[in-house]
C-alpha cells in the first residue's frame, strides 16, 4: 500500500459535477418531495456552470440522478435542438459520460423546459421539469414565507377567488400556462409553465415527475399514479388550448400542441412543438421503419 494507491489525482470536478454533499441534499429532498406529493421542499441549491433562471434546478436533479447507463433527452419548448437544450445536453454528457438521445422512447431521463413530450412516458422513465417560479400563490401573495403557511393551512381561498374573478371579467379562466393544480387532493402546485394541454398528462401517470426550481430553491414531485387535478369549478370544465384541429405544415401530424409561425401575409402556419415527434412523423411518412410511441392525445383529444 502506497500513498499513490490511497489517493487519486486532483480533478477540477466530481463525477457529475456536483460534489457528494450536494447530491446528498438533492437526494434527500427528492425523496421528501415524493413522500408529500405537490408540496414544495426547500433545498440548498448549488451554483452550476449555467446562469440561474436557465434550468439550474432541473440540472441539479439530473446531475444527481445521472450515471453512465442512463440515456438522457433534453428539450426546451419541446425542441431538442433549441440552443439552451443543446447546451444542457452537452454539459450532462460531458460531466457524466451518459449517452444522449433525441427519441423520447429511448430516454431514461428527460429534462424539459416548459413541455411534456407527446409520447406516453413509461414506469421506468423520469421526467424533470424546470421551474422558474415554484409558488402557485405568488400572484396572490408575493411573500414566500406567508405563502408557505398558506399551503400548510390548505388556505387556497384566494387562489379560487382569482379564477372566479377571471370568469366574471372575461367569461373564462384566463390562466394560460402554469395552471394551478391540486396534487393528491392536498397541495396546490404549479405544474411549471407547461401549456394547459400538457397538465392532464401528469394525472395518474406511470412515470415519476420531479419539478425543480434552482433559483428559488424549491423542489416538488408528482409520484406515479398520483392525482393531479387542475383547479376548476364543477360547472366550468377545464379547457386546453384549441389545437385539436391543427395540422403540422411540415410533418402532417395532426392534433398535437403546435407552435404558431406567423407568415408575412398575415396568416399563420403550425408546426408540432414536440420537434422529435415531428421528425419521426416525417421519417415514417418517407418510408422509414421506426417506432412511434403511443401518444396521450389521440385525434386531438385526451381520452378520460
Amino acid at each position, binding site marked *: 500500500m502506497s500513498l499513490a494507491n490511497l489517493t487519486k489525482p486532483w480533478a477540477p470536478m466530481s463525477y457529475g459535477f456536483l460534489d457528494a454533499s450536494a447530491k446528498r441534499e438533492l437526494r434527500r429532498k427528492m425523496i421528501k418531495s415524493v413522500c408529500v406529493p405537490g408540496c414544495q421542499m426547500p433545498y440548498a441549491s448549488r451554483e452550476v456552470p449555467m446562469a440561474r433562471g436557465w434550468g439550474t434546478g432541473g440540472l441539479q436533479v439530473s446531475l444527481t440522478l445521472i450515471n453512465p447507463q442512463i440515456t438522457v433527452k433534453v428539450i426546451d419548448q419541446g425542441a431538442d435542438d433549441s440552443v439552451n437544450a443543446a447546451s444542457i445536453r452537452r454539459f450532462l454528457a460531458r460531466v457524466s459520460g451518459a449517452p444522449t438521445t433525441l427519441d423520447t422512447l429511448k430516454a431514461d431521463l428527460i429534462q424539459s423546459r416548459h413541455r411534456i413530450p407527446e409520447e406516453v412516458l413509461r414506469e421506468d422513465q423520469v421526467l424533470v421539469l424546470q421551474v422558474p417560479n415554484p409558488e402557485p400563490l405568488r400572484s396572490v401573495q408575493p411573500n414566500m414565507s406567508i405563502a408557505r403557511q398558506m399551503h400548510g393551512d390548505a388556505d387556497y381561498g384566494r387562489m379560487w*377567488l382569482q379564477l*372566479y*374573478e377571471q370568469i366574471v371579467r372575461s367569461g373564462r379562466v384566463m390562466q394560460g400556462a402554469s395552471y394551478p393544480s391540486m396534487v393528491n387532493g392536498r397541495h396546490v402546485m404549479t405544474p411549471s409553465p407547461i401549456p394547459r394541454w400538457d397538465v392532464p398528462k401528469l394525472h395518474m401517470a406511470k412515470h415519476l415527475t420531479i419539478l425543480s426550481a434552482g433559483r428559488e430553491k424549491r423542489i416538488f414531485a408528482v409520484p406515479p399514479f398520483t392525482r393531479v387535478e387542475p383547479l376548476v369549478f*364543477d360547472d*366550468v370544465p377545464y379547457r386546453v388550448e384549441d389545437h385539436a384541429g391543427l395540422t403540422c405544415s411540415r410533418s402532417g401530424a395532426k392534433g398535437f400542441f403546435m407552435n404558431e409561425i406567423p407568415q408575412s401575409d398575415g396568416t399563420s402556419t403550425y408546426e408540432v412543438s414536440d420537434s422529435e415527434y415531428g421528425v419521426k412523423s416525417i421519417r415514417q411518412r418517407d418510408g422509414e421503419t421506426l417506432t412511434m410511441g403511443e401518444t396521450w392525445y389521440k385525434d386531438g383529444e385526451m381520452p378520460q
Partner: protein
Amino acid sequence: MTLTLHAPRIVKTAPLVQVHGVSKSYGPVVALREVAAKVYPGEVLGIVGESGSGKSTLLRMMNLEETPDAGSYTLDLPDVEGNLFDLNRFARRILCATQIGIVYQNPHLGLLMNHSSSGNVAERLLVAGERRFAVLREKAKEALAASEFPLERLDAPPIELSGGMQQRVQLAKAIALAPALLLLDEPTTGLDVSVQALVLDTLKRLQRDRKITMVIVSHDLGVIRTLADRVMVMRRGEVVEAGLVDQIFQDPQHAYTQQLVHAKL
C-alpha cells in the same frame, strides 16, 4: 263532557353561545377579567362600554382570532364540542368559515378591497368548499341582496364603494353561509348618521327574518337599543351589569351603567 288539560310544557332552550371565565392580560395591562356571557338562539346580545373596556377584545376572541389566558367558549351546535379555544388551526379555520360571521368597524379588516364585491362573498363559499361557479354567483347575489346592496355594483371592488356599501358587503360575506353566530364590532360607527340608520334597518330586518343570533359591540347606546334583546355593560375588562335591554336602560343598577345611560338621555 270532560276536558283533558295538559300541563303546559316549558321548553328550555340551551344557550347557543357560552363564554365563561375569560381572562386576558397583555403584559401588565388587564384586558379581560373573568368575563362570562350567554347568548340564546335567535337572540341579540349587545356589549356596551367605552374604549378600553375590553369589548372588542372579547369579540375577537369569540371570532377565535385570539386565545385568552384562561376561560372557555362553547357553541351548542351539532358536531361542535368542547372548549373552542383549544381547537387546532385547521378546526378553528373551518369553524370560523362556516359557523361564525363577523363585520368589523374597519372594512379593510374584513374585505379584500381590490377584489370584486361578489368575489368577497364568494371567497367565503370557496373556503367552505363550494366548487360550482353558478352557485357561487347566485349565493353571492342573494347575500348581497339580503344586505340591501345595489346589485348593479355586484362586481365593483369595495375600494370604489362608499362606507355604507362596504359594510353591506361585509354583512353579505358574513351571512352567506348562514352561520350560527354573527359578530358585529361597531358596524355603523364612522358612517354618516343617515347611512347608519339605513344599515341598522337592514340589520334589524335581517335579524327578524332569519332569526340570526348576534353579538353586537358598540359604544352607542342607541344602536344597542335598536338591535339588542339583552345587553352586557363592560368596564376595564369586567362585566359590571347584564340584563334585558329595557330593564338595564330604564333601571340601571350599577353606578357606571347609570352614568352611561344618563349621559345619553
